[in-house]
């Protein structure tokens, strides 16, 4: 019995040792793969052992931080713990998330803001906080007045966050009424300063009371169907501001989605639980865009938060706006259609403000107090203050900061300079010329050049030539616009005079023209031959219009020609029509997209061929087309195919080669 007990004890000791060693083994051997934890956390740097680092304790601290992120079984252990605390106490380790009632999740910050119970720096009883908000509203009103002088409309709105629309699912009770929310206070200030703004909260509340579908998804921080409501409201207000007719959205019958997209349950993902939460289906609406002959497609610059992505996901902004750019959290700037992005520190605010028809600035409640409110100061400074004056002022402020800080902490001048810029953006009133209630009379001297650039952008041909040049020389079109406007201002030779077509742009151009014809043929009954003829005529005209002395260009043009022909078959055209309807874009655009893809595809295929091969390819292609168009030739080919029992392709190739050889002789 004792022996048996000893055996069990040894087994238990071995098992204990194995289990205690398991994380160490897993860390080094990586035997299992686990679902990664969701969320951003600044990764701890790998510790480097040195005498100084060890003695000062930094190595130990860094090791602990690093190991915390890299030990074996980290992910399942954290998920398991979170799952337990979620199930038992409805809490998890993530303080960023407030777990509400009925399975609803909120951002803690927005919940706190709703109850007016933020940290002391959010305290609305503090007169300094209130004064700060008043000055932001004043800055926005100045920005609005100046932008109006240049035909740009400013629109601002506070995002109706989930806590405001669905407070009934919040876990907490209000703390008291000693503090109050910044959002209504700021809205009041915008009203009194005449800043165009939309208060979406009452509208959302009203809709929420009448609709059976949630405007926000219970497990996410962003809006669901609420995005459509926001876009609709925004468009109506933009129409009113610009006194124009914009495309409108029309909603179809809602349909439910069982598989919730990951982005929509961002808060749930952040909880990092072991098992997924129970989900109710999410409802989406099909969206149709309504346009008419008077519809205009403005350019818009959005400045705001991730809520933007949730609008663009549901409504095709490409079809609503001619050009739209987005500044995300003052960190990344996304140019048209989010195709390109660059860090916001390289962004020229003045250009963006003036080059667009509308500037839409939005933020959520908690952002009223932090960097979410950098925009008014930045915009005002960029509109009114010259670059030299800004530099000079920043330098003076940096000097005073340096003197003030030098006594207490170790500061370097670079940091002081950065701080000075941030300080000026938060407090544009540090510039004497920007103080007071009246609209500043000073202007940034670069405004003239930017307005010229706006003119260039509006001129379709000029713009097209510059785009072509940018494409051909692999330059940034934004830079070319800038250079061209500089050339105009300084009476220098213009870039557009030197611009020439690239094959790619030429094709763009051809397709543009051809698609009009195709559209016409779609509206009236036409045979395939008629469509083909129309396209060919257009292409022929366009090719003749431009004298080509470069064989390669000719080959490329012909390849594109072939692409257009390929696409212009009735089957393809109906496919394109279908795509256009699904994507809510015009047939013209859908055709263009497909054609561009084909062109690019062909171009890539041809890239590695030498010129002679290309000539041969073109020649072969043209022969084949003629062969296929000739009924007798095709019958002969088919006969050979049957008799020789060879693939059709080989027979055709043989015939093509035979024709080429004979023609040469």
């Amino acid at each position: 019995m004792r022996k048996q007990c000893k055996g069990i004890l040894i087994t238990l000791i071995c098992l204990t040792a194995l289990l205690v060693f398991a994380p160490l083994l897993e860390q080094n051997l990586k035997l299992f793969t686990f679902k990664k934890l969701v969320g951003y956390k600044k990764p701890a740097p790998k510790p480097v052992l040195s005498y100084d680092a060890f003695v000062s304790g930094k190595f130990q601290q860094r090791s602990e931080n690093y190991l915390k992120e890299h030990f074996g079984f980290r992910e399942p252990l954290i998920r398991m713990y979170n799952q337990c605390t979620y199930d038992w106490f409805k809490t998890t380790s993530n303080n960023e998330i407030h777990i509400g009632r009925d399975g609803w999740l909120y951002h803690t910050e927005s919940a706190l803001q709703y109850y007016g119970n933020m940290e002391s720096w959010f305290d609305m009883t503090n007169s300094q906080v209130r004064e700060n908000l008043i000055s932001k509203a004043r800055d926005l009103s100045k920005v609005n007045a100046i932008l109006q002088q240049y035909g740009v409309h400013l629109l601002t709105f506070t995002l109706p966050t989930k806590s405001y629309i669905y407070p009934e699912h919040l876990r907490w009770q209000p703390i008291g009424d000693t503090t109050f929310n910044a959002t209504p206070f700021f809205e009041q200030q915008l009203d009194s300063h005449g800043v165009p703004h939309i208060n979406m909260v009452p509208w959302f509340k009203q809709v929420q009371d009448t609709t059976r579908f949630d405007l926000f998804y219970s497990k996410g921080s962003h809006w669901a169907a609420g995005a459509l409501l926001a876009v609709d409201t925004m468009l109506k207000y933009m129409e009113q501001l610009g006194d124009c007719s914009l495309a409108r959205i029309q909603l179809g019958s809602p349909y439910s989605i069982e598989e919730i997209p990951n982005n929509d349950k961002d808060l749930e993902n952040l909880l990092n639980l072991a098992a997924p939460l129970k989900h109710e289906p999410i409802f989406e609406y099909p969206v149709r865009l309504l346009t008419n002959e008077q519809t205009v497609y403005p350019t818009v610059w959005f400045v705001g938060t991730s809520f933007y992505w949730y609008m663009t996901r549901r409504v095709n902004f490409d079809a609503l706006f001619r050009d739209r750019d987005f500044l995300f959290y003052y960190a990344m700037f996304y140019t048209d259609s989010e195709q390109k992005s660059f860090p916001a520190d390289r962004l020229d605010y003045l250009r963006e403000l003036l080059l667009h028809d509308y500037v839409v600035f939005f933020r959520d409640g908690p952002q009223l107090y932090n960097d979410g409110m950098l925009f008014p100061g930045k915009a005002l400074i960029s509109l009114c203050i010259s670059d030299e004056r800004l530099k000079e002022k920043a330098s003076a402020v940096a000097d005073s900061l340096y003197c003030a800080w030098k006594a207490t902490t170790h500061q370097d001048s670079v940091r002081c300079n950065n701080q000075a810029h941030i300080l000026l953006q938060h407090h544009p009133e540090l510039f004497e010329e920007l103080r007071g209630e009246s609209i500043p009379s000073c202007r940034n001297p670069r405004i003239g050049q930017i307005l010229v650039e706006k003119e260039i952008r509006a001129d379709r041909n000029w713009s097209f030539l510059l785009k072509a040049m940018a494409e051909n020389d692999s330059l940034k079109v934004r830079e070319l616009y800038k250079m061209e406007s500089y050339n105009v201002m300084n009476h220098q030779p213009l870039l557009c005079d030197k611009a020439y077509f690239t094959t790619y742009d030429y094709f763009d151009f051809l397709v543009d023209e051809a698609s009009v014809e195709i559209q016409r043929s779609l509206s009236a009954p036409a045979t395939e031959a008629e469509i083909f003829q129309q396209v060919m005529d257009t292409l022929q005209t366009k090719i003749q219009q431009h004298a080509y002395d470069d064989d390669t260009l000719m080959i490329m043009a012909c390849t594109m020609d072939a692409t257009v022909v390929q696409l212009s078959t009735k089957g393809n055209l109906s496919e394109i029509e279908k795509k256009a309807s699904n994507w809510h874009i015009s047939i013209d655009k859908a055709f263009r997209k497909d054609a561009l893809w084909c062109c690019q595809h062909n171009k890539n295929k041809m890239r590695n061929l030498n010129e002679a091969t290309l000539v041969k390819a073109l020649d072969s292609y043209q022969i084949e087309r003629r062969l296929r168009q000739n009924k007798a030739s095709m019958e002969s080919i088919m006969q050979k195919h049957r008799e020789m029992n060879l693939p059709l392709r080989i027979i055709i190739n043989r015939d093509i080669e035979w024709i080429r050889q004979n023609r040469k002789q």
Partner: protein
Amino acid sequence: MVFSSNIFLLYFMPVFFLVYFILPRKARNYFLLLASLVFYAYGAPEFIIHLIVSVIANFYLVRWMNKVEKPGLKKLLCGISIAISIGLLFYFKYGNFTMNNFNAVLGWMGAAPLKWTKILLPIGISFFSFQSVTYTLDTYRKVNEPMKRLSDYMLYIVMFPQLIAGPIVRYCDIADQIRNRESLYTDRLQGFYRFVIGLCKKVLIADVIGFQVDQVLGPSNYDVLTSAQLADIANKIATIDSTTAWIAIFAFTFQIYFDFAGYSDMAIGLGRMMGFKFPENFDNPYVSTTISEFWRRWHQTFSVFIKNYLYFPLGGSRVKTEARKYFNLWFCFLISGLWHGAAWNFVVYGALQGIFICADKLFLKKFNERLGKIPSVFFTFLIIVLTRCFFRIERIDLSWMFIKRLFAFDFTPFHFSYNPHLYVTMLVAAFFSFFTLTKLGLKVQEKVYFTEYNKRQHIIAFVVSIAAFVFCLGALNASGFSPFIYFRF
């Protein structure tokens, strides 16, 4: 390095025990010594030399003291040895405090303050200094022979399980175990179970409660705060509602117990895995019916140290006058208060404890007896809770302000309006603090802690311990993982 850290739990501990048990018995002490030095050096690298030098000096001084016959010289050497230990403790722990107060006095007198460079406190100095003192005095009193090998003495002082936070192991209690001990299989397993119990107390109870307490009362160490942060805490305390204040101070009372008792359990468990039998440090202190009983149950090894090496030398209760007897008692508690930290709030805390001990002897004990067991436990617990205000809040004016807020009866909606994790944890803490009031509770505790397990009990304890260990690892690492979904610019 602390026990409830990844580096200890996932690297140091597994590797240490693997090597320790692989090594032959003779080499184990050397390896334990080496690991202990690494353990200390990892946490306080700048003080490892101080530690080693003071240990070596003390070892040879005590050997010399033991050899000399002349009582005068013997006494002198004993005094030097104690002076080294206590002197280092005083210098590192109370140097800043003394100089700050001295300079304050100079300031009142209009004199210029003396220049003083702030000293960092070596971790664990309060514990290993006291162990050195017990070694010197036990040898002086001929309770035990001095150790023959320096490595053995060094091991006694720096052994990692009890180096940082005790228990304060008297030399006489462990002298034999250093060279002759046996680690049975059951000890290894039960040591591990005890370690996990301690880890749970620390990670699942004390840390959870502590996080919430810090939200209300700010960090426990005000030295690291800026004046603005301190002003913010003062403002918070001045406006705190009574409900929050009561919950916070009750929470802290549980936090400190489960934190300290958890650490002691881990130390005892680690020791037992190697075959050491460290003395118990806590015996359900919150079920005490009097303050005197509380101090017999709370941090027992420290109380024993104070009794043997301070109270008795002062004369104890065998003194001529009653006043002297009460003074001795009060003074011992004053010193014990100061031992907890070099700040006036700890002095007040110690003085208050001394006053309550004296009151106990005079009338409080009789009053409690009349109350009956449960009311007296509650009453004693309330005194402990109230005096804890001075322990937790480092500034006396703020402590007093906090006490006033406790009795302001301002029951407006409070800070912890909805926090089930805190409430449940506090309930669990309260349950484990008081469950030995029942016979069944005592029996269960006796079984879990002190009896040898049979096969079935081992299997159950193994499964529970492993599950708890894994859960603690999750808690330990999840608490630091609060990611953002977006960058906050």
